[in-house]
């Protein structure tokens, strides 16, 4: 029983940052129609900002997380303005550009911080607490903090999209770019905002996970694979679908990894994605495109 509950806890904690990654990716794709392969590198950049500011320069952890969001958001804005914008009408060009950005950011991290052992980032809150007095089940404090920040950011992001004019504009653009443009919305401006927000969320995900994972230049690889699976299962373009799929996929993966094997979990995760594509090609909450 304890093992089942501990696995539930592990999965819940993990799902929050996966959801944070996925909604940013969905937003960027929805507004810009760019499959951003460099999204994992935004996550990596966020983790390095926390390493640099918190672990190396003693900035408070929460300030470092905010700084990571802002810095990675700005990186996103620059990339959009310089690289993605000129490729606006060329989806393949945007995709190739994002792969280029992926390598550039990896090399920048490698040159700046080295490629040796993982960076040592001590947790702000070491240790764990038993879950509701269950001695066999523990909730690590640092993971709880990461979970809390991720949930707050997701709620804030959802409120922003649902309750603000800018949020409505972003959703409108994600639903139908041409119709949004005909309503007088600036697609370039919305793309800039989407990129800044999406990158900032990925940066935040990297920042909150930095004390819990291996921080090295290629950390984005496994993360982006998971994020892609999640947005395909959730329905490309659906923010609610991304969150739902993040939770379902992470629970599935964590339980299989615990009770069977991590490698089997990754293989079955991909098969799950294929199954969803066969049964519901638009994903769990996605809408099929009109032909």
């Amino acid at each position, binding site marked *: 029983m304890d093992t089942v509950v501990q696995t539930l806890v*592990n999965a819940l904690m993990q799902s929050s940052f996966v959801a944070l990654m996925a909604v940013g990716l969905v937003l960027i794709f929805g507004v810009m129609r760019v499959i951003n392969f460099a999204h994992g590198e935004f996550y990596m950049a966020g983790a390095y900002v926390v390493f640099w500011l918190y672990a190396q320069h003693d900035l408070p952890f929460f300030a470092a997380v905010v700084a990571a969001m802002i810095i990675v958001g700005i990186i996103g804005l620059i990339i959009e303005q310089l690289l993605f914008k000129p490729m606006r009408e060329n989806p393949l060009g945007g995709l190739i550009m994002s792969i280029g950005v992926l390598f550039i950011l990896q090399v920048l991290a490698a040159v700046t911080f080295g490629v040796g*052992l993982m960076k040592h980032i001590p947790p702000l809150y070491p240790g764990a607490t038993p879950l509701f007095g269950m001695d066999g089940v523990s909730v*690590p404090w640092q993971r709880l903090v990461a979970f809390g920040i991720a949930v707050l950011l997701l709620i804030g992001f959802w409120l922003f999209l649902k309750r603000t004019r800018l949020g409505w504009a972003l959703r409108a653009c994600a639903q139908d770019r041409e119709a949004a443009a005909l309503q007088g919305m600036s697609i370039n401006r919305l793309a800039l905002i989407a990129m800044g927000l999406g990158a900032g969320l990925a940066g935040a995900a990297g920042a909150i996970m930095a004390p819990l994972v291996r921080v090295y230049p290629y950390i984005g690889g496994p993360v982006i694979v998971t994020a892609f699976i999640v947005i395909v299962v959730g329905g490309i373009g659906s923010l609610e679908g991304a969150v739902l799929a993040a939770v379902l996929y992470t629970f599935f993966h964590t339980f299989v990894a615990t009770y069977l094997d991590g490698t089997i979990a990754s293989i079955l995760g991909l098969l799950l994605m294929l199954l969803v594509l066969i049964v519901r090609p638009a994903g769990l909450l996605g809408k099929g495109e009109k032909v």
Partner: protein
Amino acid sequence: MAKKGFTRRQFTGTAAAAAGAVAASSFGAPYVARGAEKVVKLGFLGPLTGEVAGWALPGRNACLIWADQVNAAGGIKIGDDNYMVEIVSYDNEYLTDKSLIGAKKLVLEDEVKLVLMLGGTDAPAAVQFFTKQKMLSTTLLPSDLTPDTLYHLAPAEVHPLYNVTGVEWLAENRPELKTAAICAQDDELGWPSVATYLAAFEAAGIDVVYNKYFDIATTDFAPVVTAMLAENPDIVCLDTAYPDFVNLLCEQLFLQDYKGQIISCTLDFYGRIIEKTSTEFLEGLIFQFPDFDDPAMNEPHINFENPNEFFVNYNERFPDAWSAVTWEYPAIAEMWRLAAEKAGSVEPMDVFAALKEGGRGPHVFGDADWWGEELWGIDNALVGNWPVVQIQNGKATIVEYRNIIDWWNKHGELLKKHTAEQG
């Protein structure tokens, strides 16, 4: 009438002052080989970057210290000549193809006389090339050895054979521990180590209740640890895992409130692990690699000059960078120096013959035998004593030296069986 130019007295004074200044400036300065002096180059071919760098870069850095010490003492004496030492490094990123490129560069362009390697993934093609070139090379992983690797030696480490000493010590000193869970990384480092631990646990009468590999792409170790702890083991065995993995596994064991015994092949940068967990949590953990400031490193059977001083020097020059294997590469280089002086030559085959002479050699932890025919088909591994190391009050402490061949003579068949089962 005023005299033009230098007087004899002025000349003598100036020359003496200049000579004094030059001599004074030489003290404490790193050695730079001058044109007329003979130089012998030693190659270092290993992963200086990437996730395995922790088992190569500290060793390369230690070799630089060793070379400086040798050169400061006048170099290597070969007949009437003194050879200054130069370390030439090549970062193979632990990739087979880059390793072969590096091997060719070191041998054909740099003309090195010995190549120090970590071994494992990056070794096969490079070692094949070395054998054809009759180049002497060394590994820390004797699983590289085959009957065909004639000049490839494992003179410092016999991974993972020495892991048996930790289990044997644990069984004798904590007989109440009856079950063990093993998690291992799924690669050529992990596989033979699992076979060794399985054999050692079986020999010690400890039941293995969990034994699974994890993918080396694993990012979240919580499920791995949850699965292990579900079996309520008395001992958690981390096998041979990359330093980052050992760090994260220990952290997860701490977070999931594990209070039992831990055993691991390595525990690199354990100060960082203590910072993430606690001194109490790591207390009693058994592993196999000592710090060289350990008092037990001063015992008379140790073949390493001033290990305590070396440890201090290393940590001054490369702070917070001592890893499990730091000492092994300079220890091999020092063995090579002694053999070269004995052979009166730096040529690889002459040094090789001197190293193997008499079937015994000066292993760091005591004189040992060239051994391995039974396991790898060739007696190219120097095997003898190995330390069992325990974390005591937050510090790595040698608790005992044990003889690997003694264990093999009693339980060798078990290891052969488990090695065959692991494929």
